[in-house]
Every structure is written in C-alpha cells, then in structure tokens.
C-alpha cells in the first residue's frame, strides 16, 4: 500500500473508532519542569472546571458498560516516563485542583543509579530540554511513586522505553512482565494499566499481547485507543 493509501486507511480506521466507541479526553504530558508549572496549572485548572477525574475503577465501569457515570465528562491527565517533577511539580497541582494523575513509569529509568539517570534518559528517548535538578536525580524515586500510588494511578510504561517488536523474546518479557514484577515488589501490588514505547494496541503484535496478558494488566493504552482486557 502506498503512503497516501496507508494514511487514508488509517484515517478511516481511527474515524471509525472515534465515531463508534466510548470516548475519553486525555492530555499527554512528559517532562513537567518547574519553569512550565504555570502553563501546566492553567491546563489542569481548565480541566478541573469542566471535567471529572477518571480512576481505574471509573475506566473499568465505563468500558464494561459503555456509559459514563459521573456528571461531567472524564479527563485522563497522563504523565509519561516517570520524571521526578511529576512528584515535585505536578502532584501539588493535581491535589489543589482535585484531579487524578496517571503516571506511566519506565521502571528502568527509576532503577537507574542517580549519576547515570541523565545518560539513561538520553539513551532511551526520554526527552528533557531542562536541567533543573543539581543532584542529578531526574526520575521518580520508589518512595515518591508509593506516595503517588495512594491517590493517583501508577501504570507501567514498560522497562526501558524501547521498541518491543524489535526485541527477542527474553527482552520483550523483561519489558512487559519484568516491569510488572518491579511494581509488585515496590508497591506490594500489580499495576493495572500498560503502554509500551510507540503504543501498539492489543491485537497488533501477538507476542506482546501474550506477555501483557501473562503480566495481568487490565488496560492497554495505545496511540488512539484504551482497551479493557479483562
């Protein structure tokens, strides 16, 4: 198929999903540096005026029934990678405005020794235009993740932010199942939501599907869809 044909086919496919599925609004954040705090708060405050928070239990109910049960539409505020400023900058804003954050954490970033975290980020497509921490720690700590886990959603963004389709079987297992094992060890429970680098959906790459199922994830996020798996 030509590139133009692929574009047209994808546009038609996505239009079909948006036209015939339960909808969710999302804002996807990555690095949330302190210098951007005012802009981030403007987005969060606007969301708080118009939308209701979405928890994983809310999502479970919505996708199982097909009907949204809160007075206002739901909004997923997603924070990708596991940046330290998710705790320092975002958490106080979420709590001030009463919304729930979804933190998609790359476990390998969190587990990287502090002196190596900046290099880890550069090697794993974890973008940062800002250098705001003089102590060199740019990833969340597990203590911070445990605190976020009390009132917000902790989710897996796999282990190393790499293309799982290009990995061998052992590498894929470490990405999908291995990251879940880290959450179990550190949080005392598995996480329910998963998204891999590049965001393929369930059903698009069967070796990954089997691992997602084996790891026990309930929701898979991808570029255009959120899928309830169980």
């Amino acid at each position, binding site marked *: 198929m030509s590139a133009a044909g692929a574009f047209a086919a994808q546009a038609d496919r*996505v239009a079909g999903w*948006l036209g015939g599925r339960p909808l*969710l609004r*999302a804002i996807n954040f990555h690095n949330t540096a302190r210098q951007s705090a005012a802009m981030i708060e403007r987005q969060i405050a606007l969301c708080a005026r118009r939308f209701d928070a979405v928890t994983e239990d809310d999502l479970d109910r919505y996708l*199982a029934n097909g*009907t949204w049960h809160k007075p206002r539409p739901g909004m997923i505020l997603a924070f990708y990678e596991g940046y330290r400023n998710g705790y320092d900058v975002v958490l106080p804003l979420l709590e001030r405005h009463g919304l729930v954050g979804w933190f998609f954490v790359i476990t390998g970033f969190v587990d990287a020794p502090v002196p190596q975290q900046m290099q880890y980020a550069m090697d794993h497509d974890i973008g940062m235009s800002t250098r705001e921490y003089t102590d060199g720690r740019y990833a969340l700590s597990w203590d911070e993740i445990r605190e976020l886990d009390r009132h917000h959603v902790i989710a897996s963004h796999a282990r190393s932010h790499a293309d799982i389709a290009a990995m061998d079987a052992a590498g894929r297992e470490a990405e999908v199942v291995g990251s879940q094992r880290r959450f179990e060890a550190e949080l005392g429970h598995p996480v329910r939501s998963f998204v891999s680098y590049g965001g393929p959906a369930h059903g698009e790459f069967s070796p990954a599907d089997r691992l997602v199922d084996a790891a026990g994830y309930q929701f898979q996020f991808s570029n255009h869809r959120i899928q309830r*798996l169980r």
Partner: protein
Amino acid sequence: MSLTRRLPRRDVLKGLVGSLLAVGAGWLHPRRLRAGSTASLREELDRLVTRDYAEQGIEMFLAGEDLAGGAETPVPPGFQATALNRELAGALRADAAQLQALRDDLGEDDVAALVERLAWREFGADGPGADA
C-alpha cells in the same frame, strides 16, 4: 497529543442543536471541531506539530474498547454514539481529505496530528474551546 472559528450562518441552527445535544450528553461544544478552511487547517497543523511534545501537555481523544469478552465484540453493550462521536468521525474524515489534497507525503502518524488538532480545538487551554 491542537484550534477560533465563527460558525457560518447556515450552521448556526445546526450548531445550537448540536450544543443542546452535547450538554445533554455531558459533552462540550462539538461544533468547534468542524473543519475550517484548507488554509486554517494547514496553519493550525503547522503550528501545533511544532510544539515541544516532551515539555508541553498535548490534548488527545481516545476511543475505549472492551476486549474482555473477546476481540470480536469491542463495543460495550450499553454504548450509544453521542453527538461528539459523530462530529469527531466526520471532522477527521473531512480533515484527512483536505490534507490529502495539500500533501502527497502523508503517513499514519499524520492521522494522530489531525486528532490532536481536534482535541486542541475542543478542550485545549489555548484553543477555541477554552472559553466554553
């Protein structure tokens, strides 16, 4: 994973009806999604795709699926399409056709940019829906 635009007179009644439906369904102003001129589409896309995706919050619409009963039945039983569902699907198809007339180097990733623009138009903090 964004868009101000005045409705043409012929769309005013349709827009009012759409807004009433939207409020009833708990959704906001889907009329803001409606594709504008080709020039405005191009201008907005050019501006939005230059945002720093690592440092800015990017608005997006996502479609939910329930695969718990099998991949053959992804639509939850109680789901009924809303005005926003219809507006989004129509706007995306219209925008894709407009964009194809402008460019011959499009790929699947460009579809995501179109959806991001629709989301920005509908609920972006600096989009036309911000004052809703």
